[in-house]
C-alpha cells in the first residue's frame, strides 16, 4: 500500500492527505488525540501548505468574489442627500437580492445604478401611476399631504404635480433642506434598481 492516499477525518480535525510512508513524520496535531485550543489556533495561523489547503483557498476566494461582486456589493456613501438617515460619509453594502422576487414599496430605501461604478441611495416616494408634488417642502402624493418622519429639517421645495410613468419609480433623498436644484431626484426606470442598503 506504499504510496496510497488516505483521508483522515477525526474529531475537530482538518482532513489531511498523507502518504503512508510519511506517517512517521506526522506531528502530534495529526494524531488521533484531540488537539487543544492552542493547537487549533496554531494550525489556523500556520496551516499546512498542501494541495488541499490551496484548493480550499481558491474555492473560498471564488465564493467571496461572487458574493461581494453580485450579491452583497460594498459601497461608499459620499454626499449629504440622505442626511440625517445616513451621514455624509459612510460605508454600506448593497443587498442585491432585495428586489429579485418583489417590487419596492413606498418609503423603501433603494440603491439605483447610475453607471457601472456610481450608485445612488434614495427613498421611494412614488410608484407607477402615483402623482407626486412638493409644496413648501411637503410631499403631496395622489393629492394628499404625506407625513415623512425621516425628513428632519425644514424644506422650501416646490414642484408641480407630475405622474410617475409605468415602469418607473419616483425616488428622492431624505435631505430636503438642501436646494432643490442641487438634489438629484426623480423618476427612474425599474431596470436601474440595483438593490437595497444592508443597514
Amino acid at each position, binding site marked *: 500500500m506504499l504510496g496510497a492516499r488516505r483521508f483522515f477525518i477525526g474529531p475537530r480535525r482538518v482532513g489531511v492527505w498523507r502518504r503512508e510512508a510519511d506517517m512517521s513524520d506526522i506531528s502530534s496535531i495529526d494524531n488521533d488525540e484531540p488537539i487543544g485550543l492552542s493547537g487549533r489556533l496554531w494550525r489556523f495561523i500556520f496551516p499546512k501548505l498542501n494541495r488541499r489547503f490551496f484548493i480550499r483557498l481558491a474555492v473560498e476566494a471564488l465564493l467571496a468574489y461572487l458574493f461581494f461582486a453580485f450579491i452583497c456589493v460594498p459601497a461608499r456613501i459620499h454626499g449629504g442627500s440622505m442626511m440625517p438617515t445616513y451621514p455624509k460619509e459612510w460605508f454600506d453594502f448593497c443587498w442585491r437580492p432585495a428586489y429579485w422576487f418583489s417590487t419596492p414599496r413606498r418609503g423603501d430605501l433603494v440603491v439605483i445604478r447610475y453607471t*457601472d461604478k*456610481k450608485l445612488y441611495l434614495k427613498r421611494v416616494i412614488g410608484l407607477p401611476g402615483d402623482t407626486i408634488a412638493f409644496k413648501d417642502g411637503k410631499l403631496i402624493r395622489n393629492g394628499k399631504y404625506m407625513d415623512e418622519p425621516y425628513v428632519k429639517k425644514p424644506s422650501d421645495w416646490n414642484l408641480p404635480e*407630475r405622474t410617475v410613468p409605468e415602469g418607473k419609480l419616483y425616488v428622492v433623498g431624505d435631505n430636503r433642506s438642501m436646494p432643490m436644484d442641487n438634489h*438629484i*431626484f426623480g*423618476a*427612474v*426606470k425599474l431596470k436601474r434598481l440595483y438593490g437595497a442598503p444592508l443597514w
Partner: protein
Amino acid sequence: MRKAVSALLVVVALAAAAWWFVGGRKSDEEKIAAVFDRLVDACGKAAKESPIGMASKNAEFSNIVADPCSVDVREVMIDGTFRPLEFASRITKGRTMFKTLNGKVDDLVVKVDPGGKTAVAEYSIRVWGESGQRGAFDESRDLRSELIKVDGKWKISSFVVDKVLER
C-alpha cells in the same frame, strides 16, 4: 478504410461550412448592437489622437446615422435634424471640449419591426473622460433610438435622451 476517411472528411467539411454559414450571418439585433458600438467609437476621443484618426472617425458617421437624423438630447449645441456630414461636424466640435472622451452602451433592448425595415432601440450610455472646463466626469443617460435599414445596413435615424433621474 480510405473511403471511410474520405466520407468523414466530407462530413467535417460540410459541418464546418454549415457552422460558418450560420455563425457568419448575424441577426438584426447583433447588427444594431454593432452600429452602437461603432457610434461610441466614432464619438470617443483618446488622449493623443492623430488628425488622420479623427478624420477616419468622422467618415464613419455616414455608415452610422441616416440622412436625415434627428437629435433630441436637450443640449442646445447638438439638438436638431442633421445630415451625416452635419452630424459629424457637430460631434467634432463637441469633441474639442474634451481632453478624453469614452463611451459604453449598456442595457440595449432592440425591437425590430416584423417587416425588418425599421427598429427601435432602448439603451443607456455611459460617458466618461476629462473635459477642459469640468475636469473628470462620469455620467449616464437613457436613450431611445429609431433605426432604418438602408441598402441592407442599419442606420440610426433619431436619438431621444432621458436623464436617468427625470424630475
